[in-house]
């Protein structure tokens, strides 16, 4: 199918296009030069007076996996309030607001103009389930990051300081379970959780069975990442998440990998939860300034904000000990799990309240991070769905970073003490549409190494979002309502060369690809490590290694990304 998107204001930061009026030509699921298509036969979409951007890329959104499913089961009340109807031949049905059904996750992302989403935490043992769910999510392209920090094999190699073997193991497991990058969650704590500990573990505390420290784990995996030349950096959820005073731990984590390899080597995810100053909850203060200063000064760190949204949320993380503490704060529902030799997880549904000092400050800190980090290429937009709030609230977050007036509207309603303590009321900066295109599209695509995503150059995947925003007429800082409306319901979303959303409604169900990494090289070492793994597997796991590995044909539409190991 040939499509021509005509006369739109194109924002394509990776190709340095800032609001120029251009035509985008699409043929066979790729973007091509306008001369290659037959205009008389092509479907022409008139985008004059509208904004054309590449399809959105969400780097951190818990959309699939056993913990998401447990969240769904735990929260029937979340599913009474929100639903999408079945339309025969067009779309499937589904329910849920913070923990939506697999079907409507894809539709809601597409409706906002997002086309690539990454599930950022899956225990390798449960990844078959994750892929089953990812396969069931329509429209979007996906990938998943396996949790490797508390894996016993990794901890063993870390304690032996055997980077080569650790690299070979990571290379093997990424291919075996079809993962994309290394996810680190509160390094080491999941192991301590099986002893009933793990809360408030700092970066230099010992993790018992192998006597390694979180610092060693992060440093080793960062080095492994560079040895394997993986497309994405290590994806780190720092220690002491959600504990006042944790911004120092976050800074220590960033500093610990400074100087390993060139370029960006660490991505600190949902940084808002890791940017608290103060000694206790009543004395909580914002630590965003120190973190932003470090990120501005040094080039090796990227962040995503993990903005919270006032209202209901379902926290779900592999940081099980923190969830246990959270359960004691809220006294509601709680679920916890220990995943054999690999990880742990916990789920607690919570509600963020405007009048709560802590919640109001959390709201400010997320936006402070987005606004104090000068370079939008270094700070990405997420809500850590569903921990900070549902991803369907991205349009509001966009309006807050684009408009000081929109922020002030909310600041008027929040806790007064939080208002006085926050830095946010004094920040004047406002993002432009180009900056928003950077933070939601170009930067995450560049950071995850998905070279065919996040831009509209010739050869890119034909993932295009068209919004009803005329950048010459709309002033985002004043007309933030229009920005919210436009981003909530995209005028048109094109995925893989097919029109999937028109006028804010889903018109077609298609299924995207699942990306995973395949590392070339190190064959001899890999087979040696594999035989070691096979030997230990019988001892450490309840399943056979043949059931652990996932074959290509088990995925609906696998797409391998080849990388070459440096050694």
């Amino acid at each position, binding site marked *: 199918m040939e499509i021509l998107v005509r006369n739109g204001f194109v924002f394509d930061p990776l190709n340095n296009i800032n609001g120029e009026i251009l035509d985008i030509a699409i043929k066979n699921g790729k973007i091509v030069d306008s001369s290659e298509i037959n205009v008389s036969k092509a479907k022409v979409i008139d985008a004059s007076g509208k904004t054309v951007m590449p399809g959105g890329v969400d780097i951190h959104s818990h959309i699939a996996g056993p913990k998401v499913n447990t969240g769904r089961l*735990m*929260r*029937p*009340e*979340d599913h*009474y309030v929100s639903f999408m109807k079945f339309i025969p031949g067009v779309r499937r049905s589904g329910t849920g607001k913070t923990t939506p059904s697999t079907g409507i996750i894809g539709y809601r992302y597409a409706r906002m103009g997002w086309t690539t989403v990454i599930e950022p935490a899956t225990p390798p043992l449960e990844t078959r389930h994750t892929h089953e769910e990812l396969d069931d999510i329509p429209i979007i392209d996906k990938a998943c990051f396996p949790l490797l920090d508390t894996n016993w094999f990794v901890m063993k190699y870390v304690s032996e300081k055997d980077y080569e073997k650790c690299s070979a193991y990571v290379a093997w497991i990424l291919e075996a379970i079809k993962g994309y990058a290394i996810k680190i969650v509160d390094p080491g704590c999941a192991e301590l959780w099986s002893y009933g500990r793990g809360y408030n573990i700092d970066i230099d505390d010992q993790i018992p069975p192998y006597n390694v420290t979180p610092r060693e784990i992060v440093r080793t995996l960062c080095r492994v990442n560079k040895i394997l030349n993986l497309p994405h950096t290590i994806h780190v959820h720092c220690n002491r998440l959600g504990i006042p005073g944790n911004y120092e731990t976050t800074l220590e984590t960033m500093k610990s990998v400074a100087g390993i390899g060139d370029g960006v080597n660490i991505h600190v995810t949902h940084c808002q939860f890791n940017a608290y100053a103060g000694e206790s909850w009543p004395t909580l203060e914002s630590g965003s300034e120190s973190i932003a200063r470090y990120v501005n000064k040094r080039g090796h760190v990227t962040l995503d904000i993990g903005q919270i949204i006032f209202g209901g949320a379902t926290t779900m993380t592999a940081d099980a000990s923190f969830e246990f503490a959270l359960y004691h704060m809220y006294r*509601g*529902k709680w679920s916890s799990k220990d995943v054999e030799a690999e990880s742990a997880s916990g789920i607690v549904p919570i509600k963020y309240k405007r009048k709560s000092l802590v919640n109001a400050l959390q709201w400010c800190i997320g936006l402070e991070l987005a606004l104090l980090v000068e370079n939008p290429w270094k700070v990405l937009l997420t809500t850590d769905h569903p921990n900070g709030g549902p991803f369907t609230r991205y349009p509001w977050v966009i309006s807050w970073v684009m408009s000081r007036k929109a922020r002030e509207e909310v600041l008027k309603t929040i806790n007064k003490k939080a208002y006085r303590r926050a830095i946010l009321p004094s920040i004047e900066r406002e993002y432009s549409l180009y900056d928003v295109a950077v933070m939601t599209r170009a930067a995450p695509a560049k950071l995850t190494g998905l070279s065919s995503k996040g831009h509209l150059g010739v050869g890119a995947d034909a993932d295009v979002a068209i919004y009803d925003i005329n950048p010459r007429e709309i002033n985002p800082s004043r007309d933030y309502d229009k920005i919210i409306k436009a981003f909530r319901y995209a005028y048109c979303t094109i995925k893989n060369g097919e029109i999937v959303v028109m006028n804010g409604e889903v018109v077609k169900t298609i299924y995207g690809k699942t990306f995973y990494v395949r590392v070339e090289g190190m064959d001899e070492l890999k087979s040696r490590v594999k035989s070691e793994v096979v030997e230990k597997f019988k001892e450490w796991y309840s399943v056979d290694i043949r059931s652990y590995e996932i074959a290509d044909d088990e995925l609906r539409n696998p797409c391998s990304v080849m990388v070459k190991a440096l050694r």
Partner: protein
Amino acid sequence: MLSNGEGIKVSIMGEVILTPKEVFKVLIDAETISPDKFAGKTINQIKSLRVYEGGRKRALSDLFNIEGDAGSSPQEVSIVINGDVGKVSRIGELMTAGKIIVNGNAGHYLGFRMKGGSIEVKGNVRMWLGAEMAGGQIEVYGSAQDYVGACLIGKRGKKGMKGGTIIIHGNAGSEIGFSMGGGTIIVDGNAGSLPGVGMMGGTILIKGGCIGKAGARMTGGRIIICGDPGDILPSFYIDEVRPNIKVAGVTYQGPFYTFIGDVLADVKCLGRLMVRNIPSSQQMYINKILS
């Protein structure tokens, strides 16, 4: 107590009579059958109100013969349904005033979240009778199924019935008054298992017996069981013996053995379980404590 149907017919209220056209085969979602939705509408507007028959959109007149005319405000509307509407769910949802009389059986979610007015059913009703209701009165001459005056699954806190009265002249099913925070449920017959589970306030009076586990996880309110209470949970402790108890203006003669609990849910033990007959297995032990 409500007046019977005859009395209403002679009143000055606007009356709308619905008669089912056929025996319904699939469940019908009819939250539009409510005095609030009928008030101020002409008969033709009422006929075109939307209902869902098994997920398919239908007009109210496709399923019912409709006659009479509605009053201008909900207080003046009385809806009479002549026939079996056992498959019709959500009748009287969110109603604030007026009357509904069902001369037959009624379906699920009768009086769901209702705030006022009254509903009278001459036959049986299915599950979720008066779920999450905040006020008004429901009287059922037959039996009710499970989750009378309950909250929907998954919600926390005082999200069940908050006020009003439900009177069931027949039997009731399991988990009546699930998470209720106020109001009164009176069952003339027997109840199933777990009456008043997670209860936080209000009163449940069961004139017959129940299968057992009354008041599990309760943190407030009172459950009175005049017949055989089944087994009493070990997390309830005998507190006193009361000679009589007054519920909704009527005094019931005892003696009532009063238990406090549920200690597993809240150590303050604000819940009260009052039974006239204690199980024979526990009789000796309880008499020993009381003496």
